[in-house]
């Protein structure tokens, strides 16, 4: 495949990633946000496969496969399991209205495009729009984490944020060393595990979500 084709495909995937991010921000039910983050991971895996065919880098194929298996399948399944297990509060509880979060998300997207345009020569070296899209995904994920009350929605935000970093890393380096990527994936699995246990423990001990844990008791 030619370089322009690759760039077009990565750009298109970037647009789809932004679309899934918008869905995550706008989702009023936690399960829809989980489906959206799964779709986002699927697009990341596709981007990895595209880059793998472009560069002939076998490591990227492995990474795409692992992303598909772990982030697009396993983690959403775990999140759904936790939602079923907790059995209440299917709705996300935003700190500020979702419409306001959407406006902030737009600001983040526009700013990341605007600011990364000023990077000039650095941006030239990177495939298509991957850098601004990656920055936008990362920051919007942080935005989701900051504006949600329940731990589960914050986890969704964290995964989205992680997806953004992963996408940028993949496009910038045309494939990091395999050991680093595997390490990152393991970190994500571990984080999901710890957070899942934590959420369930907090719930079973004090019957509250983490938003209510705001006072220290001696």
């Amino acid at each position, binding site marked *: 495949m030619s370089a322009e084709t690759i760039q*077009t495909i990565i*750009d*298109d995937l*970037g*647009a*789809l990633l*932004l*679309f899934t991010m*918008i*869905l995550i*921000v*706008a989702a*009023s039910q936690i399960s829809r946000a989980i489906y959206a983050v799964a779709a986002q991971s699927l697009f990341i895996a596709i981007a990895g496969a595209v880059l793998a065919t472009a560069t002939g880098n076998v490591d990227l194929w492995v990474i795409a496969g692992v992303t598909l298996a772990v982030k697009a399948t396993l983690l959403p399944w775990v999140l759904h399991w936790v939602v079923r297990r907790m059995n209440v509060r299917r709705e996300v509880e935003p700190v500020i209205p*979702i*419409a306001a979060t*959407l406006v902030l*998300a*737009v600001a983040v*997207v*526009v700013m990341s*495009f*605007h600011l990364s*345009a000023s990077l000039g020569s650095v941006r030239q070296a990177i495939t298509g*729009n991957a850098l*601004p899209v990656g920055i936008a995904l990362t920051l919007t994920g942080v935005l989701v984490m900051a504006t949600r009350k329940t731990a589960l929605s914050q986890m969704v935000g964290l995964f989205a944020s992680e997806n953004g970093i992963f996408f940028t890393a993949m496009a910038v380096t045309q494939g990091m060393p395999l050991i680093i990527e595997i390490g990152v994936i393991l970190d994500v699995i571990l984080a999901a595990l710890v957070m899942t246990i934590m959420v369930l423990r907090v719930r079973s001990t004090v019957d509250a979500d983490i938003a209510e844990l705001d006072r220290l008791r001696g």
Partner: protein
Amino acid sequence: MTGDRPLGLVLLEMILLVLLGPLVTGAIQKLKARLQCRQGADVLQPYRDLAKLLRKGTVQADTASGFFRSIPVLVLAATVAAGALVPVLRAGPSAFPLGDALMLLGLLALARFLTAVGALDAGGAFGGMGASREMTIAPLVEPVLMMVVFSTALAAGTTELGALAAHRGTSWIFAWSAADFLGFAAMLVLLPAETGRIPVDNPDTHLELTMLHEGMLLEHSGPGLGCMLLASHTRQIVTLGLVAALFFPVGPADGIGAADLLLGAGAFAAKILVLATYLALVESSYAKLRLFRVPQYLGIGFVCALTALALRIL
């Protein structure tokens, strides 16, 4: 002035749109019924409804002014005029001065305004409520539609729909740029709102809690109601045609023979069928949103359209 679409073709396309409008509604209703495991009314039922209404007499509220009688005709005229601007059979700029996409959106907005004015004029409570709701939703839908049009127009350098469609060419989704994906996503979010369907509006009920567009039609009767219904059928197919012209390929501009026109007609039917299936699927799988949730739903479309525009400009 040279162009690919002579006056005869434009008129033919306009008449075709008006004639096919009720068929699309019928097809969506039939599909919806099948999806819900019902037999459903015949696809031609909207035509029968129209024929029945045209034979009936007119009853008018005492409070309505003389202007009320002319409302249906004006609404239908504005909508049909908007239909003339949509390329159906063949892409390419028109051979004579014809409005562009902004004109189309303006005419649709005019039809909407006249419908609301008519509903208020009759003095009924439901009409006024429907009008107020419609006017609450409209300012959220129309700017987003414009932004989607602009994001496509920026790439083509023109807002004339025929030229836009010609610029899209005959290549399919492979030629889409990143902004097109987001623009199309915004369009998919907006379509149910613009065609008055679930999750924004419910075309099948006359329950006062749920209706937007139907509420405004309550005071009309007989041929007037027929005109209003035909206008809403036409509006729906015009909106679908706008989406098709902006994002899907239209028949090639250089073809002259009847075979090319037939190909264009077949392609148009396929595109409309795909979009109608989408509408039926959405209507069968979602519940109607609470009115106060609608801005949030439309917000998704707004953000998508704005991002598409940002991708084009930055």
